[in-house]
């Protein structure tokens, strides 16, 4: 028999101010709509279209067969951290001590959260170069701090400039979040351009959270790690992970490299909230670092060809699009149609069944642009760009 309970209306508030203050991600609405459509081509997915390389999957299965099913040390398996250290030195020329200056995290996502929580107090301001990955601002807000967007735009190829950054700084500015190669614009910044940002960071004593998860996906130039810049190592929290380069999004594995005081503060939070990153994933990642270079190169070559294709095809279709130097997103302007980016994305989805993400989802700087992920098959890209062309022709002003 069903138990009768007296319903009482809770008098105390039930939701935290932090949770109430943030909005659900803006990408979702589009995907919900796209998911109901047949023959819809999605250029909306922000993850590789490759399955994780077989040797990585195999290594993880082997680790399970051998019974590696318990927790690892809080900071992650020391073999993995050592391999990460060697990889970062070899690939990007930055040297970190695996014992003290590194934590293996549950995705770069957790690393970003930890970096903010370990260093930022309520009321502090955190500058976010936008358009940016959708998590940054909410994570800052949830820590009680205030995100201050610093917009970049097409006039500087979506690179952050010294002037823009300086203009946003106040007495309460504590840190800046950078992410180059960028999601959603694909912009990359070279060492000279980053050096200008470094000078501002130094002059105003800012921490720099540098999310370099797309570092491997730099198509035309060698990636510069922010901490490799002069005098920047001590104020940089370098965030990266396995999701994008190694096609390992579902494994939930990232890492962070930073000076000891910061990693040790992050480690306290990590150890109480997550304990450690998943063990099978750590074994897979170890294999990825030891024997994955060639496959990463193959995948990168494939993305590069698809980038070239989509940028030419979008321009031919009438949407002006720069050549993005990294990540796997093209970020064309939809100005030619006279629509704002939300209307464009919605109409394109309804009329032509192509899903793209409106740029404003990533911050004000994204206005008038849409994000097209080219991590999808050449066939799908050809069909999608043909449909976009038909759409633009119909709506061209």
């Amino acid at each position, binding site marked *: 028999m069903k138990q009768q309970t007296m319903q009482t209306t809770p008098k105390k508030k039930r939701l935290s101010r932090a949770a109430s203050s943030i909005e*659900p*991600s803006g*990408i*979702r609405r589009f*995907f*919900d709509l*796209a*998911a109901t459509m047949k023959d819809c081509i*999605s250029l*909306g*997915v*922000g*993850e590789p*279209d490759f399955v994780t390389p077989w040797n990585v999957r195999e290594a993880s299965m082997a680790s399970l067969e051998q019974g590696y099913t318990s927790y690892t040390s809080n900071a992650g398996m020391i073999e993995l951290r050592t391999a990460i250290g060697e990889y970062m030195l070899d690939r990007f020329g930055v040297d970190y001590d695996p014992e003290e200056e590194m934590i293996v995290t549950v995705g770069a996502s957790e690393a970003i959260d930890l970096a903010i929580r370990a260093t930022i107090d309520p009321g502090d301001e955190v500058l976010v170069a936008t358009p940016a*990955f*959708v*998590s940054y601002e909410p994570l800052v807000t949830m820590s009680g701090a205030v995100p201050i967007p610093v917009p970049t735009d097409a006039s500087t190829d979506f690179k952050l400039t010294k002037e823009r950054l300086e203009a946003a700084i106040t007495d309460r500015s504590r840190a800046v979040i950078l992410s180059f190669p960028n999601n959603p614009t694909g912009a990359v910044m070279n060492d000279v351009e980053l050096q200008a940002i470094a000078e501002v960071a130094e002059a105003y004593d800012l921490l720099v959270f540098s999310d370099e998860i797309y570092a491997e996906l730099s198509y035309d130039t060698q990636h510069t790690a922010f901490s490799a810049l002069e005098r920047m190592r001590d104020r940089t929290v370098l965030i990266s992970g396995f999701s994008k380069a190694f096609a390992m999004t579902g494994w939930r594995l990232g890492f962070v490299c930073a000076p000891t005081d910061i990693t040790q503060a992050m480690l306290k939070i990590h150890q109480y909230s997550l304990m450690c990153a998943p063990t099978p994933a750590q074994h897979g990642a170890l294999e990825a670092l030891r024997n994955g270079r060639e496959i990463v190169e193959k995948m990168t*070559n494939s993305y*590069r*060809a*698809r980038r*070239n*294709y989509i940028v*030419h*095809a979008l321009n031919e279709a009438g949407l002006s699009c720069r050549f993005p130097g990294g990540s796997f997103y093209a970020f064309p302007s939809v100005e030619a149609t006279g629509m704002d980016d939300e209307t464009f994305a919605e109409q394109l989805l309804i009329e032509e069944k192509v899903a793209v993400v409106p740029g404003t989802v990533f911050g004000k700087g994204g206005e008038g642009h849409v994000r097209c992920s080219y991590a*999808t098959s*050449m066939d799908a890209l*050809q069909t999608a760009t043909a449909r976009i062309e038909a759409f633009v022709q119909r709506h061209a002003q």
Partner: protein
Amino acid sequence: MTKDKELELIRILEHHGRIETDVLAKMLDENEEDVKTGMKKLEDEKVILSYGAIIDWNKVTTEDHIAAMIDVKVTPQREVGFDEVAARIQRFPEVTALYLMSGTYDLSVMVEGQTMEGVARFVSNKLSTLDAVLSTTTHFRLKKYKHDGVIFDQEEKDRRMVVSP
């Protein structure tokens, strides 16, 4: 076309031989005429030998499609080593691939035909009777799982979900 671009072109063509030149040009960030010239050059230099398709014959014909790999031991000939006997074997239309091997035998001969008897006849009447051939061991292929880097009977499904953010 730079050497790097040429290599990129080769890599793309190896997997998508059928792709149109205007699409190729976009993928390479080159103009179409240069791509055409580049392809012609690679064909002339015999870097590109042919544009093939990988077919799962089981799906298109009910006729049997028999394939066998034959390990062949041969006596190498003075001066020309294995090349002369290889030159004779490779001309048989039944032979679809031929490799010189290290190990317990010398030549690996891939033979395809419509019947088991046809393949057997080829081995007994043509291959074994060559002077240089000492012995043959024929292995019939039972099933093709992977060929030229392509896995057969694999539905490539995009399992990516629509997740926020």
